[in-house]
């Protein structure tokens, strides 16, 4: 089932792509994550040029987040106002990110920056998840919500200007905060080829203090627009979005996610988070290992101004 993909300019096994989509889809259905952080390194691993992997994966995340956001929308778990502020930041960030990406690619350092981003952010998020869920598992029961607890702690972040009321999330905070988070995750989204949910979700819970029920739906809602922006800009600037590969991945992941959701429903929240944390850490270690280990091949070829 070898197919020639004209944007990637190489032939790949279509069944392998479907399988990758299925496997990552299974995990994303199980954990309720986008899976971009797994898919992009896997695509690079099977030989796709990193630039094509990132551009194509952004395209796939558009599809994955639409179907996810739709499900949350039906349950009323999307805070549109918050989502719009986040996505304005996301547009700014992802546009900056694609410009940065194009520049780094010309310098020949895009592979390095992609790897460092993966190691840093997956390393931090994975460690936090593992530690947090290990603690929860040791307590052996869900953390009790104490009666007199404040909705969230007040810090200097709440002294920022341009306060805005977000009714659905029951928040009255500075618009600069979600805007800033949007910009930051937007940059990462463009460089790493991910939706950025793994940073966005904790940021919404711990920095914004949003109710957990609203977090995933709102995050997915804004990811649609940010990854759509990345897909568009990568197509225009770098011609590195392979729609054919993206479609095969989507097809696989849709099927995989069905099974993943069924398995995920049988596991407890802490167990899921611990497992996801371990997978995230494993990816970080794998990518990190390639950075520090002596490469088998020291030299690489590139067309001047072409794919890395």
């Amino acid at each position: 089932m070898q197919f020639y993909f004209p944007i990637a300019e190489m032939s790949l096994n279509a069944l392998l792509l479907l399988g990758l989509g299925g496997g990552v889809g299974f995990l994303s259905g199980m954990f309720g994550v986008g899976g971009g952080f797994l898919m992009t390194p896997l695509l690079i691993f099977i030989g796709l040029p990193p630039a094509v992997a990132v551009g194509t994966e952004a395209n796939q995340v558009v599809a994955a987040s639409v179907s996810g956001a739709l499900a949350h929308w039906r349950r009323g778990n999307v805070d549109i106002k918050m989502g719009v502020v986040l996505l304005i930041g996301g547009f700014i960030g992802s546009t900056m990110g694609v410009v940065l990406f194009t520049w780094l690619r010309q310098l020949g350092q895009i592979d390095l920056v992609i790897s460092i981003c993966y190691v840093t952010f997956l390393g931090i998020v994975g460690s936090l998840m593992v530690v947090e869920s290990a603690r929860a598992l040791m307590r052996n029961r869900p953390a009790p919500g104490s009666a007199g607890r404040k909705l969230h702690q007040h810090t200097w972040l709440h002294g920022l200007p341009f306060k805005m009321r977000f009714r659905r999330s029951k928040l009255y905070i500075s618009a600069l905060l979600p805007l800033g988070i949007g910009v930051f995750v937007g940059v990462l989204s463009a460089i790493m080829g991910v939706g950025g949910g793994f940073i966005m979700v904790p940021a919404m819970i711990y920095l914004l203090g949003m109710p957990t029920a609203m977090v995933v739906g709102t995050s997915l809602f804004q990811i649609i627009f940010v990854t759509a922006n990345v897909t568009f800009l990568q197509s225009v600037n770098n011609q590195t979005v392979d729609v054919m590969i993206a479609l095969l991945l989507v097809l696989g992941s849709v099927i995989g996610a069905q099974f993943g959701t069924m398995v995920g429903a049988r596991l407890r929240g802490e167990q899921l988070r611990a497992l996801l944390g371990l997978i995230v850490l494993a990816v970080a270690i794998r990518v990190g290992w390639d950075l520090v280990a002596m490469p088998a091949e020291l030299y690489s070829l590139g067309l001047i101004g072409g794919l890395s």
Partner: protein
Amino acid sequence: MRRALVIGAACAGIAAAALAVAQAARPLIADLSSKQIKISTGFTGAQLLLFGSTDGAGDVVVVVRGPRRDEVVRRKERTGGIWINGRSIEFGGVPAYYHVASSRPLGAFANRNTLMEYRIGVATLNLPALSAAPDDLVREFRTALIRLKREGKLYSESPGGVTVMDGRLFRTEITFPATVPTGTYSAEVYLFRQGEPVGRSLTPITVRKVGLEAAIFEFAHRHAAIYGILAVIIALLAGWTAGVIFRRS
């Protein structure tokens, strides 16, 4: 049936006569099984048959050259504990593809200077550095370039790859890997006698994308903005469809 045989015999006669005329005029004629390589959905590389005849004994060399372009060789260097792309050298006029097949090893019938003159053999390729760098470093990077091209099956040498029959007819198979770049290639055939080329033929080969693949590639590069918008719309539709199916099950 008989008529068909007669026509067949006549045709063979004409072909033989044409061959004789051509041979009288030129010491060497050659042709390819196809002058086009079409990259389509199922493309996993291609094989062409190059064949022809000579007006007598001699050594036949086939050289296939791909389009020339500028390429950059990068070397990973250890900096602060991690391996990053450090030094890089750009080389000009690098053939994207280069293949030599000959009836005997090159050194057996031509001397070094002649081979250099006609750029026959991977070692004779002129790959000038465009970046300023010390000579020994340029040599090191050039060696790496050639090695990587060889590993990618884009550069190859096949001494003995040309089969000669009856001292007159010759044939060779030319293999192109799946990663063969598009562009205009040339297939040169030389007939060597007493260390000198006495006959030469040149046939161009076109490598191009065809069908849906070509259309997508062209579209992505010529109308990048529309391609981007369509990519987004396709993904939105795919995601929406998946969402609807999800709800039903």
